[in-house]
C-alpha cells in the first residue's frame, strides 16, 4: 500500500485552529494534549528611510502540524519497547499496552508529535484517525478545516499535484525523518533555520 500523507496549504490557513479542536474532540483529549497544533511563525521589522518614511517587511503565517507519519520515523527507531509500529499505509501508531512511558520518543521527535498522558503513564499521538481511514473517511482535522488548507492523500499523488516541499520554518529539516508531508508554500514562507522570524505561540505548540 502507498504511504498516506497530510497536505497543508500555508496560503489558505487562517490560524483558526478548528483542526486542533476537532482533533481534541474526536480523540477526547485533555486541553494540554494537542496531537495537532497550529504554529504561528512571524517576524520582520520596520526600517526608517532617508525621507523619514518607514518601510516594513513584517510577516506571519501558520503551520498546522500533527504527526507526519514519517518514512524514517525516529520515534520508532528509538523506542526501546518496540511499541511504535508503521502500518503498510505508512500510519505510525503507538501501542499503549507496550509503551513503558520513558518519553524517549518525545525527546527524539522534531515535531513534538508524541505526547505523554499523565493518567496512563504512556505516550500518545496522532493516529491519522486510523479508524476513519479504515472506513474510507478523512481524518477529523481535514474535514474540520473551513478554508480547505488541509488534505489527506497518498504521498506520491500529493507530490505529483503540489510538489515535494516538506520543510519550512519553524519545522525541522525534512531529511532528518522524511515526513509524509506536502506543503504548499505562500510568498511569506521562510526556509528552515532561516532565523527570519520566531515562533509566536510557543505555549500552544
Amino acid at each position, binding site marked *: 500500500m502507498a504511504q498516506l500523507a497530510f497536505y497543508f496549504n500555508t496560503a489558505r490557513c487562517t490560524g483558526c485552529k478548528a483542526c486542533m479542536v476537532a482533533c481534541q474532540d474526536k480523540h477526547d483529549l485533555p486541553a494540554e494534549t494537542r496531537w495537532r497544533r497550529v504554529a504561528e511563525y512571524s517576524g520582520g521589522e520596520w526600517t526608517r528611510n532617508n525621507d523619514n518614511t518607514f518601510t516594513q517587511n513584517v510577516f506571519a503565517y501558520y503551520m498546522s502540524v500533527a504527526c507526519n507519519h514519517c518514512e524514517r520515523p*525516529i520515534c520508532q*527507531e*528509538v*523506542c526501546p519497547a518496540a511499541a511504535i509500529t508503521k502500518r503498510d499505509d505508512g500510519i505510525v501508531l503507538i501501542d499503549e499496552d507496550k509503551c513503558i*512511558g520513558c518519553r524517549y520518543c518525545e525527546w527524539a521527535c*522534531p515535531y513534538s508529535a508524541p505526547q505523554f498522558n499523565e493518567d496512563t503513564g504512556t505516550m500518545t499521538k496522532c493516529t491519522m484517525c486510523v479508524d476513519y481511514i479504515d472506513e474510507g473517511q478523512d481524518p477529523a482535522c481535514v474535514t474540520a478545516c473551513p478554508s480547505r488548507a488541509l488534505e489527506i492523500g497518498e504521498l506520491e499523488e500529493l507530490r505529483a499535484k503540489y510538489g515535494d516541499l516538506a520543510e519550512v520554518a519553524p519545522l525541522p529539516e525534512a531529511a532528518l525523518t522524511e515526513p509524509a508531508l506536502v506543503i504548499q508554500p505562500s510568498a511569506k514562507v521562510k526556509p528552515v*533555520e532561516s532565523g527570519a522570524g520566531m515562533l509566536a505561540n510557543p505555549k500552544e505548540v
Partner: protein
Amino acid sequence: MDVREWALIAFTILSQMAVGSFIVLGIVYFFVNRKWGEAEADRFSDRALLAIGPVLILGTLASLFHLGNPLNAYRAISNIGESWLSREILTNVLFIGLGAVFAFMQWRKIGSPALRTAIAAVAAIVGVVLVYSMAQVYMLRTAPAWNTIATPITFFTTTFLLGALAVGAAYVVNYAMIKRSDPDCAAAQCDILRLALRWLALAAVLLVGVHLVVQPLYVAYLSNSGTAAASEAVDILMGEYSVLFALRLALVFVGAAILGAFIYRTASTPGREMVLGNLAILAFAVVLVAEVMGRFLFYAMQTNVGL
C-alpha cells in the same frame, strides 16, 4: 525539572560511577597483586568491590522512577536492533549480572584467579559498552546540543573520575576497618593505601583536565553551530543556569585538582593517614556533587530541532 529527570541523573551518575569503580579497582588490584601478593591485594580491595553492588542496584532502581509505566519496564530491551536505549538497559543488566557473579566468586574465592580475572575482564568490557550506549542514547540526530562528541567524552570522564575517587574513598574506609580489627597487619595495607591514593589522585587531576578543556570547547562549538536548538541550549546554560555552571566547574576543579594535589602530597609522607583519609573522602564528596550538577545541566539543555 521533576522527579523523572532526577531519576535519570541518579541512574546515569550511579551506573557510570559503578563502571568506573569496577575498572579502576581492577587496575589497582593488578598492580597491588604484583607487588604485595594476592592475600594483601584481596584484603585491600574486596570490601570496595562488594560496595559497587548497592550503587548499581540503587541506580537501576532509580531509573524505574523515570518510567510512566514501570510495570512494562521489562519491555525496555525489545528493540536491541535499533534503539540505543534498549542497548543501554541490556548492557546495564549484563553488567549487574557479570559483576555480581565475579564479586561473589572473588568474595568466596571460588574458581581459579585466572577464571575470576577473565570474568572481571568481560564485565569491564560490558561496562565500557554500557557507558558508550548511555552516550549514544543522547546523540539523537534531532538534538544538536547533545549530538556532539562532548557527550561520550564527558560521560567517560565522569565514569573514571568518579570511579577513581569513589574507589579511593572506599580504600580509606576499608583501611580504617582493618586497622580497628587487626592493627598488626595494617603496615603493608598502609603502604598500599598511600601508593594507591597517590596514583588515583594523579588520575583525578588528569581527568578533571579533560572536563575543563572539553566544557569551554563544547560551549564555543554550540554557540557557533548555527542551529536554533543549539543556540537555545547555550542560552539555557549561559543564562538561566550560568551560576550553576560556574559553580559546577569550580567544584570539580577544587575537588579533583586542588584536593587531588593535596592527596598526592600527603600520601608521599607516611604517618599522615588520618589527614589523607579525610582528604580522599572530601574529594569524592565534592566531585560527586559537582558531577550531579553537571548532569543536571546536561538534561536542562535538552532542546531539539523543529517544534
